[in-house]
């Protein structure tokens, strides 16, 4: 697909990456906040990457900019080989629709559409015709997330965990280059959370998809192949094969450090 970037440690090509990403909120010099302060990171294809960091570390901003929901003040963001910076709103929208999947913390589903329609939504928006291949793929997805008997239900008739599973199915339905998940378990009890994380993990390991997840929960981060740590808008560490305990220890170290720094950038 894309050429490997030699700078990265991983041998797989990056499904998404940012280079020297800077995001400044506010315009005047005294109110300006640097949410991202020169971050360069790649998210390798076929891998499950978690972004962690304390509140205000810039992890959500990083995800939003990498996914084309927000624009960088300077630096560049790529989905595959496509640089997002020069794209106008329309092209960005089409790129999100065709090449990116999303799972948000809450309110992932359109309440007027059924489960099946929610899953198909990005493809319907694209006006894509469903070939046999796509049909088989979505069919398999529906079985994986275990919602076959709920296809004609409305989101309001589902539990929170079920709704998130539909969101996961929707995110992968179009076989996007990368799926971004923003605190996907933030609103769920631990059992439902486990289920959703398990689904994300299976999608990467069994189906070869790419997931980038923002979380503040070390247990959630432990499902990832790799964790990148952000603090004060900077990339401060990466951890391969994380466990909940290791991640928690690392976070505690940051907490001690950030106590000396001032609270600032929004998350």
């Amino acid at each position, binding site marked *: 697909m894309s050429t490997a970037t030699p700078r990265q440690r991983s041998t797989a090509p990056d499904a998404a990456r940012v280079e020297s990403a800077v995001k400044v909120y506010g315009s005047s010099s005294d109110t300006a906040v640097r949410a991202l302060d020169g971050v360069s990171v790649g998210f390798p294809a076929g891998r499950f990457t978690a972004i962690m960091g304390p509140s205000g570390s810039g992890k959500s901003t990083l995800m939003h900019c990498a996914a084309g929901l927000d624009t960088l003040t300077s630096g560049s963001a790529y989905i595959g080989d496509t640089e997002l910076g020069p794209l106008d709103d329309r092209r960005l*929208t089409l790129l999100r629709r065709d090449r990116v999947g999303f799972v948000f913390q809450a309110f992932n589903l359109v309440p007027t559409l059924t489960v099946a329609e929610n899953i198909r*939504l990005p493809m319907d928006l694209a006006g894509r015709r469903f070939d046999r291949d796509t049909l088989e793929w979505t069919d398999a997805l529906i079985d994986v997330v275990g919602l076959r008997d709920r296809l004609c239900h409305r989101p309001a008739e589902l539990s929170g965990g079920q709704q998130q599973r539909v969101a996961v199915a929707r995110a992968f339905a179009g076989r996007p280059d990368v799926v971004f998940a923003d605190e996907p378990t933030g609103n769920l009890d631990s059992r439902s959370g486990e289920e959703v994380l398990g689904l994300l993990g299976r999608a990467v390991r069994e189906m070869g998809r790419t997931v980038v997840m923002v979380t503040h929960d070390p247990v959630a981060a432990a499902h990832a192949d790799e964790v990148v740590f952000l603090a004060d808008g900077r990339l401060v560490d990466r951890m391969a094969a994380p466990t909940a305990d290791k991640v928690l220890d690392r976070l505690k170290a940051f907490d001690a450090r950030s106590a000396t720094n001032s609270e600032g950038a929004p998350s």
Partner: protein
Amino acid sequence: MSATGPRDAAGPGSPTGPRGPARPGAPTGSLAAALRISLTSLRGHKRRFAGTFFAVLLGVAFLAGTLVMGDTLRASFDTMFGNATRGTDAVVRGADTITTPGESQGVRRNIDTALVDRIEKVPGVAAAVPAIQGAGQLIGKDGDPIGGQGPPTLAGNWITDTELNAYRLAEGRAPARSGEVVVNRGAAESGDLKIGDTTTLRTPDPVKVTIVGLATFGGEDGMAQTTFTGMTRADAEKYLMPKPGEAATVQVRAGPGTSQQELVDALTPVLPKGVEAITGQEAAEENSDMISGQFLTLFTTFLLVFSGIALLVATFSIHNTFAIVVAQRTRENALLRALGASRRQVTAATLAEASVVAVVASVAGLAGGIGIAAGLQALFPAIGFPFPEGDLVISGTSMLLPLAVGVAVCVASALLPAVRAGRTAPLAALRETAVDHSGASRARAAVGTGIAVAAVALTLVGVLASPSIWLAGGGAVLALAAFVVLGPVASSRAVRILGGPLDRLRGVTGSLARRNALRSPKRTAATASALMIGVAVVCLFTVFGASLKATMDQTVSRSFAGDVAVSTPSFGAGGSGLSPRLAPAVGERPEVATAVGLGRGVAEVNGQGRALTVTDPVALAKSFDLGTVDGSLGDLGDDGIALTRAEADKQHLTVGDKAELAFTDGKKDTFTVRAVYGQSELAGDYVITRDAWAPHRGQDSDTLVAVTFKDGVSAADGKAAVSAVAKEYGNPEVQTRDEYAQSAAGGIDMMLTLVYALLALAVLIALLGIANTLTLAVHERTRELGLLRAVGQTRGQLRAMVRWESVLVAAFGTAGGLALGGFLGWVLVKASDGASDSVFAFALPPTQLAVVALVGLAAGALAGLRPARRAARLDVLRAIAAE
């Protein structure tokens, strides 16, 4: 309004929770708190009330504008007539009038000019002059007649005693020789005539006249749009009176020291029976009343009805806005309740909010209304309608009434939502989102169906079984109520059907639009109801107008057997008719088999005023289908009449019976019924010969000449021959049967255009309502829109989604309006049919109704533009994060 009030009432710190301050005891305090809450929330959400504000403003402005304009016109006309007739102290005229059904002004007998000598000898009389008045229509420079579309076209003698003449010479001189005339300046201008020009005056015989002077009336260019031609007395007697020595009235001026009443008292004893004297002031008031009392009242009532419709439509929009705002604010209100606000306080807060919007919008509306009146005052003269000068008359009523109506409409519309706000359970604060109550409840369906059944039953009885306009009207009102009650029940199904094609046409965008419109049946129905009422009224008038046209068409094609009709297209009191000599002249042409002229007379038949058709009965039967005739139309002579079967039944007359006819000249004669005929259309209810009418007639004229060609004469040849003759008689219009039917319906189109223009306001308010509801909905769905944008909905798709939702709501309203309007139109036509003798035809004009439907849909798309643009401008990230 002490500072302790709010503290008592709100009591957020109360440890006893909601119960503690529930009885504030001090109503002023609770109101102050309510007002404070509402003002704060108003400031915070000004945009939400923009739609309400404009709906009230427009309705109130229209209402106030109508009232101010009416008052101003009325005062101006009073002044104008007062000025014009200031020098006339008494008017002597025929005492009795004969009024025929459907006419407001009676016909008065002429008086003998010999009376003038006798009046002049009465002590206290300074001067007395006969005033001759009749119909006379001038032909403009371009060959077209001047005026005639409503206001009268008058001619008379130019009264040389300037104080007794209502007209003043503004330029030129008075007529001195036969053929010289003075015309009012307004008429001269609209006909592009100047002093020295020679033109034709139809009296109705064409008279060559030369304009020697221009006149004004009460300082204006004319008495509204009435035209006036002043001739020499000899000319006026010759052309306007049946015989010399007659006049319409005698104008009398009092000598010094004699009051108007004293003058009338002195005159009365010398007047013969059947002649009366009234003071000049009374005469002026009668004249002014004729315009302001009848024309203006009709005009303002007409406008008031339409401002009523606009305000009714506004009620729905306003109610909807408050219902949505209250629903959106459920959590806020629940929090207030949890913190100890009483139900009353929450209700009062919402009502206070409505009141503030109402008062501000109504006051703005008053200013707008005065602006409209001032604008019209400036505009009218520019379009050739002399609007008498004078300041705007702004009375207390014309300000207080619209203000009260505006505030009442707004507050009453907000009442239910406010009560609902008060009922918010404190627990609702904890719920995730406000759940919309489903409008499609079984109870609603049952009640609505009940009303609908009652409406149809009442209407059918009122229309078919025992014709009564009241029963039918009651049914119509119930039908409207049924539509409003059933709206939410019907909206789901209707939107599903109407939006069906959207899925296929617009894919997921269309599907989303359709489902958004389905989300809250109650809201969709309320939004659509406003448009529905507007469209229903448009449709009602369209159907009624088309039915009237079809009726005329049917009338002409059923009863007019001739080839061409000659008439002067006129409307209302205008025009001067056709020369009675035209029909004989046309009849002499070789192409023509028969030419029959129909004149109009009035008489009291056994004490009731009736219109008579003055004609040659035998020729009449050749050109018109009179149905079955009992007796013989050839035997009428000068002491016989013929009448329709319906009228004969009403008067209990049959062939051979005697009837007493009293004429305007005071004479009474006994006539014998010689024939009874079946159809009255065009030929009228009574037929009398010219010989019988001649002794009693006034100014002689025909209203229609019906011509039948000889066999073998082509339509074009025949028409050309008739036109050639008509040219010599003031050039009236020669029309084929179809053309005649169409021109008879011409007035209807003019009326419909005016009605459409006035209804545009109601439709505009309905559209503001749709736009407002959508804006509120977009606000409500911020997160959802953000999600859609995040997963790949383009701005264009988002805009289309909102626009299509708007179109769907509009389509539902339009469809409902067409159904309701069609039904009401049918009721109106059938009820009119049952209530009158003439047969009404019912017609649904497919083209016009299709246009109405398209306009409704296009309007929906238009209403969706702004909300769609606002929705598309949403920032994706912020929308996702929105609470």
